[in-house]
């Protein structure tokens, strides 16, 4: 019994740090509507800076002052980021800020290695909290008790700040309706900056407070960010109390899950999150998001099918790509195959995200399911390659049908988080069900048959499938179904009023996207000759998001360009420099600032400007007549 009680206290102690980070993310999202992916990076940065400061300045003042100062220093970095980067892109399409903060995260990951080195750093123990308390034979570190007390204190301070100060009232008002707050003459810029600073400060403080408990290393950011997303979503975005309750819930699930359900310990949290979202779509303490007002002046060019000239150009580009085996060596062909596969993957997410308005954060699940489908069929059933390629993606289709049914009941950020949870569940099954999936060791020896074995043949196969997939998705975009999907995205009210069953349409699109992602995964399994849980992982899901955003969400063909640019750039950078993440992150940030509509979006804007300048005189006269 004592053991369980101690385990409970350990959970509570972990909850303190998690709560600090999650409340920061929640506050930032509530006011600025930015899903701050870099929040984990700020947490990690807080831990590193706190490590340096506490090492340099000894004594109690040095330690506590160091952690606090680390929070302030990182908050200052946050302010800089907000003013230089985020301010420029508040009006960019939704989720574009996610791309920017993802770029930042990549940069920070390399920067901390550059500054602090790649090895784990063990921090000092907190002065005055070095010992442990004996509890019926079990040891409880006194630092844990300190953290358990700290959580409610921070909650209280935040509560007072939001209820009792003028600033807090403004923040709460902005969380409900930021346009209204702006209309009342509040300087939005500084409100956003200060909110961002507070959020980052809390994240960095959470990181600093962890150093007596945990080693500091350069993968902390991704580990915490997923937990934090889960906490924020379970608690309800924008709710501080929700973040607190959910942080305790998640920490306790982690603490006891490993004891009671060791087999499913990793997915337990995600199962609970999925259950909460299905029962309470806006989290335990969240409210339904007010519909965002459309940014005025943001007119979107309606999508057009390719003109015959453009179709010729696309065919020429394809022919050119097919000629690669004439000049490229085996390495180039393997890279080419991989790019082709990621074009398929990105195009499938683009279909869901741009056409359907459903930004999935867990699209890799269906990619990976397709890959595992192939591996099962090839290794266990011993089917020929063609059969595997055709049937393997059905596993992705099946997964998308099951998860998609629940996911499309939600929208916006909550949809994103539910898809993330589903992807994590699938990943955990692949990781923990060793008997079937081989766990971390994966399934090896999934090689293509002789007809597709040579790099050039496999390249042509991948290219052909990619061309087919992209063309098919494009046809669907302009088909009645594609329009029904866009109609549901544009105006749920109107589409329902013209007889469109929005949920069914969205579910169908989810299944289509999942199946196509499964096709990409199936090819990927053959390309690598093996399947690992990584091909279901979060980083792959994020890669796909980045490709779509980079190409341009509001374009039809952006995903193709985005996938080629991103994949080629990242493969090339890895071969050229040890700091590939730093450079890639910087490139992403630059692209975000320079072309907030993505690469293809920018090209289209330039083109439409050019054609419009010649047309505008004509158009102007027509408008006058019409009025």
């Amino acid at each position, binding site marked *: 019994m004592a053991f369980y009680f101690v385990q409970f206290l350990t959970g509570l102690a972990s909850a303190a740090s998690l709560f600090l980070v999650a409340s920061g993310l929640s506050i930032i999202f509530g006011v600025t509507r930015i899903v701050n992916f870099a929040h984990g990076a700020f947490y990690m940065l807080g831990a590193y800076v706190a490590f340096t400061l506490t090492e340099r300045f000894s004594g109690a003042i040095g330690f506590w002052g160091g952690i606090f100062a680390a929070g302030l220093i990182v908050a200052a970095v946050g302010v800089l980021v907000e003013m230089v980067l985020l301010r420029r892109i508040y009006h960019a399409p939704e989720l574009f800020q996610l791309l920017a903060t993802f770029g930042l995260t990549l940069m920070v990951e390399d920067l901390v290695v550059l500054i602090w080195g790649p090895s784990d750093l063990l921090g000092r123990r907190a002065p005055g909290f070095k010992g442990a308390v004996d509890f019926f034979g079990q040891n409880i570190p006194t630092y844990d008790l300190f953290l358990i007390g700290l959580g409610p204190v921070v909650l209280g301070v935040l509560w007072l700040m939001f209820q009792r100060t003028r600033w807090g009232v403004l923040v709460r008002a902005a969380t409900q309706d930021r346009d209204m707050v702006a209309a009342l003459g509040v300087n939005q810029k500084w409100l956003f900056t200060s909110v961002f600073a507070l959020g980052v400060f809390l994240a960095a403080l959470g990181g600093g407070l962890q150093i007596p408990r945990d080693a500091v290393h350069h993968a902390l950011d991704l580990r915490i960010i997923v937990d934090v997303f889960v906490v924020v979503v379970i608690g309800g975005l924008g709710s501080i109390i929700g973040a607190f309750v959910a942080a305790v819930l998640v920490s306790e699930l982690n603490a006891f899950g490993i004891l009671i359900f060791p087999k499913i310990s990793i997915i337990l949290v995600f199962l609970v999150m999925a259950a909460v979202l299905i029962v309470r779509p806006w989290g335990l303490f969240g409210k339904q998001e007010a519909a965002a007002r459309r940014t005025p002046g943001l007119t979107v060019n309606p999508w057009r*099918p390719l003109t015959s000239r453009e179709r010729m150009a696309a065919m020429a580009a394809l022919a050119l790509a097919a000629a690669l085996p004439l000049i490229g060596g085996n390495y180039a062909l393997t890279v080419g195959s991989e790019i082709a596969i990621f074009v398929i993957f990105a195009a499938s997410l683009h279909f869901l995200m741009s056409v359907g308005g459903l930004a999935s954060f867990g699209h890799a699940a269906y990619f990976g399911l397709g890959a595992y489908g192939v591996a099962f069929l090839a290794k266990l059933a011993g089917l020929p390659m063609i059969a595997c390629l055709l049937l393997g993606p059905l596993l992705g289709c099946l997964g998308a049908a099951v998860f998609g049914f629940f996911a499309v009941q939600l929208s916006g950020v909550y949809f994103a988080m539910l898809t993330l949870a589903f992807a994590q569940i699938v990943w955990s099954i692949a990781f923990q069900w060793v008997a079937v999936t081989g766990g971390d060791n994966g399934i090896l020896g999934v090689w293509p048959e002789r007809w597709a074995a040579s790099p050039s043949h496999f390249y042509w196969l991948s290219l052909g499938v990619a061309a087919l997939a992209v063309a098919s998705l494009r046809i669907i975009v302009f088909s*009645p179904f*594609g329009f029904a999907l866009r109609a549901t995205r*544009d*105006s749920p009210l*109107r589409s329902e009023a*013209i007889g469109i069953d929005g949920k069914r349409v969205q579910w169908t699109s989810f299944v289509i996207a999942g199946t196509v992602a499964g096709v990409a995964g199936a090819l990927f399994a053959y390309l690598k000759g093996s399947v690992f849980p990584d091909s279901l992982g979060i980083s792959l899901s994020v890669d796909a998001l980045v490709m779509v955003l980079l190409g341009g969400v509001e374009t039809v063909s952006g995903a193709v360009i985005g996938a080629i640019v991103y994949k080629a750039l990242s493969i090339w950078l890895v071969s050229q420099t040890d700091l590939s993440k730093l450079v890639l992150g910087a490139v992403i940030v630059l692209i975000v600032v320079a072309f907030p509509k993505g690469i293809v979006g920018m090209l289209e804007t330039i083109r439409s400007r050019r054609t419009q300048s010649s047309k505008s005189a004509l158009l102007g006269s027509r408008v006058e007549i019409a009025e």
Partner: protein
Amino acid sequence: MSITPTLLSVDNLSKSYGGVHAVRGVSFALRAGEILALIGPNGAGKSTCFDMLNGQNIPDSGRINLLGEDTTGKKPRAIWRLGVGRTFQITATFPTMTVRENVQVALVSYDRQLFNLWASTPKFAQAEANRLLELVGMSGFSERPCGELAYGDLKRLELAIALANQPKLLLMDEPTAGMAPRERIELMRLTAQIARDQSIGVLFTEHDMDVVFEHADRILVLNRGSLIAEGSPEEVRRNPQVRAIYLGEGLVYDARHREGAGV
């Protein structure tokens, strides 16, 4: 008039939120080709009533019979399939499509082609889409992005979308809200003309009494959730209860009407 069939009959409809009776015991009927206005001051229950008719809100009690079918509690899309067109107080269109594509989506749905993955929507039923746009005077705008339209044109586009399923009944929630005075009259004239030509029944709510008294065949007056008057514009105008509620607007209308009659 007596041989025209009843399109819509509402029987004892009620809805309350907490302790507030938004709508209580409302009953009325609407015949084919009839233009019926539902008026009342703010908070009278017009919108609640309207939302229950088109399926966005489920009544606590009472029945709604649309075109011979009991539609109480049915979804908006099911009601649309019966032949009911709908426009909204704040226009709801598809801003990322062209004007014609907006109408084409409705036509696709009417043809039950929503899950067709192959055909080209921009080429789908172009002639019919053009005809509808022509009908509402929007044919010059068919290639324009819908997001660029002025508000009055959006209202006309909405009317074209609402006509795509060859409706027998149009439900229009404040069709002229947010429009300039001249546009209002034009839009309602257009609607009335289409309704009479095609013998479509129209139920609309409206705040502008000029529009109501000029175009409605019959008027229902709602106050605090209950129907307090029903009849021809002339009858409603003379009703002392209605005058009490609509003191300002009623008198203004009377004055203008007399001026008009005097000329």
